[in-house]
């Protein structure tokens, strides 16, 4: 699965069944991000599949 991480402006390849698992694998604290699938917000409990377009957006202000 190709995942876009906004804060570092990079795509990463990984495999995960849920958002929670995805964030754990990428070592991203869930309180610091929101996750979208096809530009719609999803919660940590939701299932994801390889064909989904996943974006991880930072919630922390830039200063």
């Amino acid at each position, binding site marked *: 699965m190709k995942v876009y991480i906004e804060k570092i402006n990079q795509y990463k390849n990984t495999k995960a069944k849920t958002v929670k698992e995805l964030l754990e694998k990428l070592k991203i604290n869930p309180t610091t991000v929101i996750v979208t699938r096809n530009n719609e*917000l999803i919660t940590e409990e*939701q299932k994801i599949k390889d064909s989904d377009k996943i974006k991880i957006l930072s*919630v*922390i202000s830039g*200063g």
Partner: protein
Amino acid sequence: MSCKKCVEKPVIKLINSNKTLCKNCFIEYFEKKVKKTIADYNLIDKNDHIIVAASGGKDSITTLYLLNKIFSKRKDVKITALAIDEGIHGYRDKSLEHLKKFCKKYKIILNIYSYKKEFGKSLDKILKTYNGVPCSICGVFRRYLLNAKSRELGATKLATGHNLDDETQSIVMNYFRNSLNVSARLGPITGIIPDKKFIRRIKPLYFLTEKEVTIYSFLMKLLDKFNECPYNHDSYRGKIRDMLNDFEAKYPGTKHGIITTFIQLLPILKEHYKKSNYIKECSSCGEPSSQEKCKSCQYIDEVIKPTL
């Protein structure tokens, strides 16, 4: 899985209640919380001119959007915006563009003041010769201008986009630094003793987490592209923020716990520091200050003037 209030797809699981909410129920929850904070803490009165300190970031844009939405039809409350252009190339110029477009769309008056015009130098130029912590000098100049300019513009209160995360960071920072007197100035509405020259700050997003503000601004299409200040690294606040976020991930509800406890202590702190926290006038510029000479004038004399 569906929203606990209806049958729609959820967008968030609330930490403090474990409820899952869909888009519309979350927007309703968020706006109700802002209105409740305004009502419970009497943040806005009749005949108030509220100036929103806006940077173009999600917190200030959300504050401006909501205050405008709630009060734009009321003739007895005026909402305008004030921005400070520190002069940070590639960062502030971009966020100010977003802010200008937003204010134009919602027909909100926006006033912008720059460090270059007010102090003689942009932050980028100041930092070429100043080796101290960028956030310290920048924060002092920004707070100075926000107070002085909002007073000049006739504000009765200055609204900021501070959220629950910002406030918990400040509380913990002050605790670690043995600065309880500074914490006494925090809360949904600041100020202990009324002062003619000090414009009271109000924080309508006080009880909403940074994540909730991001979700709201995403859903309402208020969010601009991620943009990080180039000087925002290795700050003390950043370390406290990371520590609190790590703790929050392991023990959900930590930040709400800090705020709930602090709100109960705040009246005691305000009463205790009432006498020692009185506001003086700076001997040089006349602006409100806790010291003989305000920090802004100290920086101007020590950092700006020798290099002009």
